[in-house]
């Protein structure tokens, strides 16, 4: 289908300037699985290279080879013109390759200065040279545009975005030449993301090479200038970002066209099933009024912290309800999760790990926990029956698992999310409250979850769909509402919104 920038069309860049970092013909096997096959990439000084690919495409294996955690089976690497073959992560660090992970490696009880200099302290005869250290810390913080950050502040008291700056500063003190960011924005607010981009721009200007791994194409567009797409451990495409559309990148990632990303399932919208009047919780939400119809998908947009999650939790009575009424099919259920489930609510948490799923328990346990009644009599379970039912759901949703007795923690993110969705479907919920159901899962799984939502709506279920990703809301929902400062500000048909107008509504100043 004529994809631009086909395989092998590497760096048609300024002749003569050799790349800062290059990887040639890297292959890697783990037992029977081939993780990488003949992968090459190049990062020039001043480049921000986007490394794109679905989960399992080989991005992290490639970066583990780069950072010395795994040796490659074949292939070679060069850093600044010299052969580069790190024995371990420490060697890579010394050679000038720094990794910034989404989970930060900082000591919360130490100061900014101590964290930046940890393991690379300036000392004489074991005595810290604070003056020299201060100067070094000031130098790198200034370079990053954060000269105002007090070096004596405890890292634990800093917001997440600032903590990341400390981590980057640590890499700069070690004279890093290539900095790899692995999903750096997943725990950051919008403002912090913009500041991070500013920092990355400074890194570019000072002649470093940056590799940027992210699921968010718009972020990549904002901060990177070149891209490499991995699919199934091979290079699917590479080139300048300026010459390629997002749809084409997605097509390279999934190996199929973008129309298939948002499958369109026709569904009929019926009468009002859920009406919310003046709903208020602890701090957020505040006086929310809203209706939801049968077979309708209502998107809830807004910034992180605008009260979207709190709205869903309040509806499900996981958080205290202070004011207002919630009527589902003309009944007002008591304010406990148990009563809300009985009334027909189903809730999928944004946090699969610590709330949504009991990670150590089996798929069957997680799937049926909210509704064991069909398999029990006088409190005794019919395990065979339950197992068969779980097997049935695994097949229906195409969950990739060995057996219903496997622990949930062994599954990939997308499959875990399907288990969480299967639970609310198994519970036969009429109103599904989905909080960021596509976060942290790969494109193919996202697409399957969109299709599932469409099918649920077609079957007469109603869905409230919270997401930070405006594009998916616009593609999947019938109506979209925007929350800001705890209130539901505006609800319109999805076709009357654009990504820009949603963002504008989310950040606008409101007179309360």
């Amino acid at each position, binding site marked *: 289908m004529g994809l631009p920038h086909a395989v092998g069309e590497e760096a048609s860049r300024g002749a003569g300037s050799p790349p800062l970092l290059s990887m040639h013909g890297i292959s890697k096997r783990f037992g029977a699985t081939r993780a990488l096959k003949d992968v090459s990439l190049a990062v020039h000084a001043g480049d921000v290279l986007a490394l794109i690919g679905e989960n399992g495409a080989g991005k992290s294996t490639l970066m583990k080879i780069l950072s010395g955690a795994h040796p490659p089976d074949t292939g070679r690497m060069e850093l600044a013109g010299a052969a580069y073959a790190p024995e371990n992560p420490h060697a890579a660090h010394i050679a000038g390759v720094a990794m910034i992970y989404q989970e930060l490696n900082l000591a919360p009880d130490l100061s900014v200065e101590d964290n930046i200099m940890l393991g690379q302290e300036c000392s004489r005869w074991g005595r810290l040279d604070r003056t020299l250290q201060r100067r070094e810390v000031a130098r790198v913080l200034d370079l990053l545009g954060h000269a105002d950050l007090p070096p004596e502040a405890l890292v634990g008291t800093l917001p997440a975005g600032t903590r990341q700056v400390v981590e980057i500063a640590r890499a700069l003190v070690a004279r890093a030449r290539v900095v790899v960011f692995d999903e750096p924005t997943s725990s950051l607010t919008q403002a912090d993301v913009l500041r991070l981009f500013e920092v990355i721009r400074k890194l570019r200007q000072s002649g470093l090479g940056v590799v940027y791994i992210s699921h968010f194409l718009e972020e990549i567009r904002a901060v990177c200038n070149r891209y490499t797409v991995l699919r199934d451990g091979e290079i699917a495409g590479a080139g300048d970002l300026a010459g390629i559309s997002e749809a084409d990148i997605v097509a390279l990632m999934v190996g199929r066209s973008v129309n298939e990303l948002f499958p369109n399932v026709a569904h009929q919208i019926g009468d009002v099933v859920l009406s919310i009047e003046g709903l208020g919780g602890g701090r957020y939400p505040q006086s929310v009024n809203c209706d939801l119809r049968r077979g309708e998908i209502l998107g809830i947009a807004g910034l992180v912290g605008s009260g979207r999650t709190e709205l869903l939790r309040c509806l*499900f009575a*996981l958080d205290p309800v202070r004011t207002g009424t919630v009527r589902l099919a003309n009944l007002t259920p008591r304010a406990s*999760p*148990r009563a*809300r*489930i*009985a009334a027909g609510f189903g*809730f999928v*948490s944004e946090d699969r790990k*610590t*709330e*949504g*799923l*009991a*990670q*150590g*328990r089996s798929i069957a*346990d*997680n799937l049926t*926990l*909210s509704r*064991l009644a069909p398999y*029990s009599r006088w*409190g*005794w*379970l019919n*395990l065979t029956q339950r197992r068969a039912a779980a*097997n049935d759901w695994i*097949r229906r949703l195409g969950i990739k698992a*060995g*057996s219903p*007795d*496997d622990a949930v*923690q062994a599954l990939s993110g997308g499959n875990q999310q399907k288990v969480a969705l299967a*639970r609310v479907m198994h519970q036969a919920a009429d109103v599904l409250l989905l909080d960021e159901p596509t976060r942290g899962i790969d494109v193919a799984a996202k697409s399957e979850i969109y299709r599932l939502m469409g099918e649920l709506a077609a079957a007469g279920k109603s869905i409230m769909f919270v997401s930070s990703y405006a594009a998916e809301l616009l593609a999947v929902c019938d109506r979209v509402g925007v929350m800001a400062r705890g209130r539901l500000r505006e609800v319109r048909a999805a076709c009357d919104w654009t990504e820009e107008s949603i963002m504008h509504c989310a950040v606008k100043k409101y007179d309360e």
Partner: protein
Amino acid sequence: MHLTSDTRPARTATILRSAKTTLGPFLALIVVIGFFGVYDTWFGGGGQFLSARNFRSVSVATATIAVAALGMTVVIIAGGIDLSAGTTVALSATIVAWCLKANWPAPLAAAAGILIACTAGLINGVLISTLRVVPFIVTLGTMTIYLGIAKIIARETTIRPDLNEQVPRWLADLLSARTEALWFGAPAGIWLTLALSLALAAMLHLTVFGRYVYAIGSNESTARLCGVNVPWCKMTLYTLAGFFVGVAGIFQFARLSSGNPTSGTGLELRIIAAVVIGGGSLSGGRGAVLGTLTGAAIMEVIKSGCTQLGLHNPVQEIILGAIIVAAVTLDQVRQRRSAG
């Protein structure tokens, strides 16, 4: 069609895996018995270690800890802990002795012992779910409270009912190794322990409540989100643990023929040790009845073995401590390997 042929090997693998986790402590028990048996038979012990009599006396000595540990297993699976179990055993034994001394019929005295322990458990459960204080602290407090109550009841002495007049034969022989007391080769108390174990294992694996216990221990937020009534479950399970502790109290009275309020101090640590050696995880979500029974047995076998070999008490204690650390370390290693 396709489905059954597809999942059967996976199912067998799962059963094997779960068997391996419960068999771990069991193998350890066999190794310990084998070691002492070989040493005792061929290297100049008394040659008594592997005798049926010794087996009987070991199992009789294990029973009290084992029954109380069954209750603790439920608590630990649900992610809790009960430090008051030891003093509650003594409280229950004291109540039984007090009732008999007051000329109550023995079945009523036993029921009173169980009832008081269930109440103690219920109080733990209510405090934990209403005050939202961690179980460790709550039961650390009630541990001393129950000790105090037992002392008040016993007027700070030991209650000794008249063995001939007030204590019936069946109660005194509940855990006696004397041949007249045996019933199909073991005293009634052993059979009772086994029956309770079976019932508890069935409850944990085959009932809705059992699923809830595991779910709460594995991830309490998930359980809440799935509509499980977490406070109610906790009260129930601590009360259930109290029931087992109450039975342990009756056992203790039967062994000592007296009610001594301080006789349970420190017992809670051995009860917890039995669960942990048996594969229970203090972070919740894991534990098994068979493992707990094995854990309790391992401790008693080591004690008996060391006595036969003429090793002194302090040496036994050191060995036991080392076994606890080793058991938990092994378990951790196995967990890590299976997780990744």
